[in-house]
């Protein structure tokens, strides 16, 4: 069959080498990119997700209780970037100016102006001018309402989304590195290494993650990096199986034997010859692992064992929604954001899977 389908080599050589963003890429990569684009849903999901994520990165400039620019007596101040004492505007305290304080506002506007970000609240700003008990429903002031501590939901959402995705990305990155390395060593060397490692993983994956986190949460106060480290202890096992299988298969390939005959070291063979072949299945997994990591942080926050109290987080918002059923905007907002984010990631994952599907390369 191969005979008939393979284009004549000369025909292939005659065409110009494909490029992507100016970089020369292999024909196979070109075909995979095309396949990825052909999955319209996944392709658009990627763009929407990227727009949301990149949009949330400068959250401090979008939602903040400090103005972006202050002009006072002809001098420009940038409170977003730098803390100024109240005395800089002719106030009385040496502490940082509270730009939401009516007194400070009056001082500044008497001899200048302030430029506010679109959402004049940070994730921890408490809105004292609500005029009704918190949680308050959506209004022109608080677009998505406030939570039960009178903090603006839209600002918390923005920061929460950012930290969720960042946590997911960092966790995915590190667990992939550890998982790939562990799987590679097991698959490549096989034998006893493989046997012992596999048994270790079986035992390790049997440990109750949640209880360990609860116990540790009572010893240290978990911050972003503590949580990341703890999750990492258990999340690296996801990729081991796939990578191990690929390495087991590839270590007997002829080109690996040829590299051995050349005198290439084990590490060199693993890195140059086997790893690129294992990357296909790994990359296919990544979006799904990312979605999983995001969910893990959310569920921990929901249970109250996640980020420290006061941190913006989707899980905490969900929990508030559960506790304040009379304020449906809390639950709905968290639900919609989570559903959209996870759906986008899964759609991207499906498109990546399509792109690497060898059966689709010819269709």
């Amino acid at each position, binding site marked *: 069959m191969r005979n008939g389908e393979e284009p004549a080599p000369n025909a292939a050589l005659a065409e110009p080498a494909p490029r992507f963003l100016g970089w020369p890429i292999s024909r196979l990569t070109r*075909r995979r990119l095309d396949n990825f684009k052909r999955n319209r849903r996944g392709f658009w999901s990627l763009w929407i997700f990227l727009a949301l994520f990149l949009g949330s990165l400068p959250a401090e400039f979008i939602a903040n209780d400090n103005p972006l620019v202050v002009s006072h007596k002809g001098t420009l101040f940038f409170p977003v970037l730098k803390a100024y004492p109240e005395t800089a505007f002719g106030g009385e305290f040496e502490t940082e100016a509270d730009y939401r304080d009516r007194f400070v506002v009056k001082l500044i506007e008497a001899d200048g102006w302030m430029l506010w970000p679109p959402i004049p609240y940070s994730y921890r700003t408490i809105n004292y001018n609500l005029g009704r008990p918190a949680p308050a429903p959506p209004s022109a002031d608080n677009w998505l309402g406030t939570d039960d501590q009178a903090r603006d939901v839209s600002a918390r959402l923005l920061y929460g989304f950012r930290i969720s995705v960042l946590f997911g990305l960092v966790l995915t990155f590190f667990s992939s590195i550890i998982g790939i390395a562990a799987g590679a060593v097991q698959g490549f060397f096989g034998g006893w290494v493989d046997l012992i490692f596999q048994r270790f993983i079986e035992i390790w994956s049997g440990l109750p993650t949640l209880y360990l986190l609860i116990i540790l949460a009572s010893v240290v106060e978990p911050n972003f990096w503590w949580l990341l480290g703890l999750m990492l202890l258990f999340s690296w096992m996801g990729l081991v199986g796939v990578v191990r299988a690929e390495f087991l298969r590839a270590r007997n390939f002829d080109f690996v034997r040829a590299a051995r005959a050349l005198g290439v070291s084990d590490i060199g063979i693993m890195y140059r010859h086997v790893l690129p072949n294992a990357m296909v299945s790994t990359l296919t997994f990544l979006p799904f692992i990312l979605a999983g990591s995001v969910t893990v942080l959310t569920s921990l926050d929901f249970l109250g064992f996640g980020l420290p109290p006061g941190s913006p987080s989707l899980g905490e918002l969900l929990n508030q929604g559960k506790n304040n059923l009379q304020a449906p905007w809390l639950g709905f907002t968290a639900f919609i954001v989570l559903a959209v984010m996870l759906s986008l990631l899964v759609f991207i994952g499906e498109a990546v899977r399509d792109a690497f599907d060898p059966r689709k390369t010819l269709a």
Partner: protein
Amino acid sequence: MSLLEIRDLGVTFRVDGREIEAVRGLSMHVEKGETVALVGESGSGKSVTALSVLQLLPYPMAYHPHGSIIFDGEELVGAPERRLREVRGNRISMIFQEPMTSLNPLHSIEKQINETLTLHKGLTRAQARRRTLELLELVRLPDAKNRLTAWPHQLSGGQRQRVMIAMALANEPDLLIADEPTTAVDVTIQAQILQLLGDLQRDLGMAILLITHDLTIVRSFAKRVCVMTQGILVEDGPTERVFENPSHDYTKKLLAAEPKGVPTPSDPSAPPVMSTKDMKVWFPIRRGLLRRTVGHIKAVDGVSVTVREGQTVGVVGESGSGKTTLGMALLRLISSEGPIQFDGREIQGLRSGALRPLRREMQAVFQDPFSSLSPRLSVFQIVEEGLLVHGIGGTRDERRAIVAEALEEVSLDPATMDRYPHEFSGGQRQRVSIARAMVLKPRFVVLDEPTSALDMTVQAQIVDLLRELQQRHKLAYLFISHDLRVVRALANDVIVLKDGHVMEQGPAAKIFDNPETDYTKALMAAAFKIEAVETGAVSM
């Protein structure tokens, strides 16, 4: 009226928006009870033609822009699927190249043959079982009665191919399409399988369409031959006429493509490069809970060999005879027992760090050019790798120059060095593998079936290239092959292996002209005359 009549057949594949014409305006016919061979190199469209007879191409990716296939008065192109199913496996059967993958590994062979019988003939289980046994005896599967419940992995390649034939014959087809039925098996098995097909055809009166690239088979087996190249039928006629008096240039080229040339007589005075005495490679067989060693598989058992500068030692034998193991053990890629002397130095037991500088001087070229090149590295990266490992060529530009020189030496255009292996044909890829070995200027090269996966014309070119390189650089070759024609063209000395033992060893001329053992004689008969010798010396 012909049994099968193909008129002006075209097959086109749509790939990435491009159209690739695999078959262009092919017309041919097969009469009842006749053997027709369809010959061509890979990519010539012969397999595609065969698959389109059964309408088994990946439609709608493939389509027929024109043409018709008439089988026994009935049009098959565009026939409804239900009708095609009645024809497939019933009136037209097909056997494929790879006996290793054509059988379902999860069903016993009885179950697999029964399936065709119950599906097309509506036999009961007991009847089907009886018929299955009959068929297995018909294809001369040894000990057929006890093999009914065997699983595919318990059978050898030749035995599996027999089972495939039994399956194909189950419904007494009028036409049997054999797509390279013997490419994946040993020469001795090939002779047996072809003899079996010939006998069966005589007894059952079916027509055979044999697809092959091997002209020796065609000559001894087919009545009529059709030659294809690049999707076009260039010549057809009675086998004898085509072989004696080919009219088309391509046919002439194909016929002239036998590996030619005779090596110089073996020269015992040349300095030895690589030698071993009484080498043993034993794999332990472990059983039971405690994995105790209960015995050994003796892959190589007491083989002594000396490869001299500028000389070639050919290693021949059936598959499983330990040829490749011997080569790998000499290169210390698998562990072995017994002294290995390279260039006067004992390398057995040397640590891998101490061995690395020596690796530069001993290289290997492998059988399958499709799997021996990493698909994700460019040709430059592949050839460069050895230079990097051994610290040759300081800058990237220097290395590029060295790689270019190596590619030129194997007659590849250095301008193509940034391309990836899949953009090259099989023969070109094998040249890349040779360049990868040669760029390090080795003194000893293990050639592990370097021509077996290639077309005839390409084989001859590679043999010429290898000989030229040997003469230029005084290389010592260990040439492993089951193809005796290639060995005869290259080897000064020959070792005949069977089950890890040396059956015969000596100068090539003596072994080819005067084989002493039955085993060697059977190998020769199978390779040069495609005759199966039933002395029990070769495996079944």
